[in-house]
């Protein structure tokens, strides 16, 4: 049971990273400014790199010989365990940066607490990720401030993104049954414990951005049990295309 729970909780984390990395990769070559065409792939590369490490560890823990690519390319929509926030489509640049800001703030706090995990791979991932997340927070946070306190249009779009993404915040902090076991056994941190600090961090930046902190709303959840929004199926259809059309081929 312990192994199965750990493998599953690792998949939740890995899926969060891969799906967000994929969403960012969709923007490559289409950014509003050349510097962002360099920055967004950087963020995506960090996330995809971390996903690969976590999938490999999940495969080892699971013990069925599944590789990173089998996890990424050969599972169906209902088997993906990412939270709903990371699959949100790239509606506009404000959505992209706010999604990044929420996620990276959560993950930095998460990895800071994961530094004393019983699992060496998790500790290694934590050490590398903390620095990456600091950069992601800085990059996205600076944009939140520029957009929130920029022009009338950018402030309107930033506020719209806040309104749209507020439904997906709570799910970050809800541990699945597997994550709960991993917390109790000292493998992964407690997701609930980050809420207060996360709220403070976001509020601080929102104040600078002149944005209203999101009101509490009924949370949309389901990602951890494979119940996603319609948008994930399309993302996977595209991402898994070659592996599905040519089963067993080596690339």
């Amino acid at each position, binding site marked *: 049971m312990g192994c199965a729970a750990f493998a599953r909780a690792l998949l939740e984390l890995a899926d969060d990273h*891969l799906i967000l990395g*994929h969403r960012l*990769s*969709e923007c*490559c*070559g*289409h*950014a*509003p*400014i*050349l*510097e962002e*065409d*360099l920055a967004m*792939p*950087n963020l*995506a*590369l960090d996330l*995809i*790199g971390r*996903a*690969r490490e976590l*999938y490999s560890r999940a495969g080892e823990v699971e013990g069925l010989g599944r590789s*990173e*690519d089998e996890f*990424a*390319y050969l599972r169906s929509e209902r088997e993906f365990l990412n939270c709903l926030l990371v699959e949100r489509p790239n509606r*506009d*640049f404000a959505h992209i940066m706010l999604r990044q800001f929420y996620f990276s703030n959560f993950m930095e706090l998460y990895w800071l607490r994961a530094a004393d995990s019983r699992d060496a791979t998790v500790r290694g991932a934590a050490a590398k990720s903390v620095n990456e997340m600091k950069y992601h927070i800085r990059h996205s946070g600076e944009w939140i*401030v*520029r*957009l929130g*306190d*920029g*022009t009338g*249009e*950018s402030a309107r*779009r930033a506020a719209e993104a806040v309104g749209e993404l507020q439904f997906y915040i709570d799910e970050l902090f809800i541990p699945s049954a597997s994550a709960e076991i991993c917390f109790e056994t000292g493998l992964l941190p407690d997701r609930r414990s980050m809420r207060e600090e996360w709220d403070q961090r976001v509020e601080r930046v929102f104040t600078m951005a002149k944005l209203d902190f999101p009101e509490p709303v009924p949370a949309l959840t389901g990602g951890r049990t494979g119940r996603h929004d319609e948008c994930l199926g399309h993302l996977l259809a*595209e*991402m898994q*295309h*070659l*592996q599905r059309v*040519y089963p067993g*081929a*080596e*690339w």
Partner: protein
Amino acid sequence: MYSQGLLKQDTAAVESEEFLAAFQDRIDAEEKIEPNDRMPAAYRKTLVRQIGQHAHSEIVGMLPEGNWITRAPTLKRKAALLAKVQDEGGHGLYLYAAAETLGVSREKMTGELLAGTAKYSSIFNYPTLSWADIGAIGWLVDGAAIMNQIPLCRCSYGPYARAMIRICREESFHQRQGFEIMTRLSQGSSEQKSMAQDALDRWWWPSLMMFGPHDAASRHSEQSMKWKIKRFTNDSLRQKFIDAIVPQAEYLQLKIPDPELKWDPERNDGAGGYAHGPIDWDEFRRVLKGQGPMARERLRARREAWETGAWVREAALAHADKRDRQRAQVA
């Protein structure tokens, strides 16, 4: 940009015969020409055109490969392709910066690209139809680019030469990556092999066209050679490329789509080389003029990114302006 201080600087020279001769002497002595040096207007114009086209090619070149980032077949390939396309954006950035040292802004160059008045490499007006195209682009298109660009590391204009050193290093990595994709496909299933052959069939001739018109028809070549902006002629670089690629295609067990391709012992001053069939220059001109299969789509994608991103750039400027004013009030 770091070079903004150089914009509109008056380095234009009165082009007396003595000045032109002294300038040529510096070039012949392999001295680097630097941004604040006096230089003939035509030298500056040639460089602005060439560096600008090169920068635009990097930026437009992100699109055909970007077309497969979301469909890359493994996580390793996805990360490598993403990093590669990002490198191209980086090349665009250094090249725009190099062009800015000659007094033309990135905004102006971008405006010309979007208006369709600036050229970029016609190769990017072809579609990427399968994963093998990503291999073929790395192997052939980056391969051809390297042949063209290695001599530019010794270009007489300092900032361009220095930008090219870094770019070439990254391009040669990209080429190896492309060849590795082709190797894997050519050792794969019959479907993968035919995917690889189909990609070679489609990318071969456009790659040869990347070296530009035959020497006799090349408008800018002679003067550029004299100024040591260019070191080798179009035809000699094309020959070098073909001679390098043919054995690689044999290794991959792929067939070069040219029935007239054959070994010619007379080529390369008797050292031998491959003779090739005629290049379809009508196609080259059509594609260059924006009548290629993806030309309108490429520019539309660039314009769309620029237009839908306008509010973001405006917000950044407005915010910076507010901050400056706040600081001024505090001070």
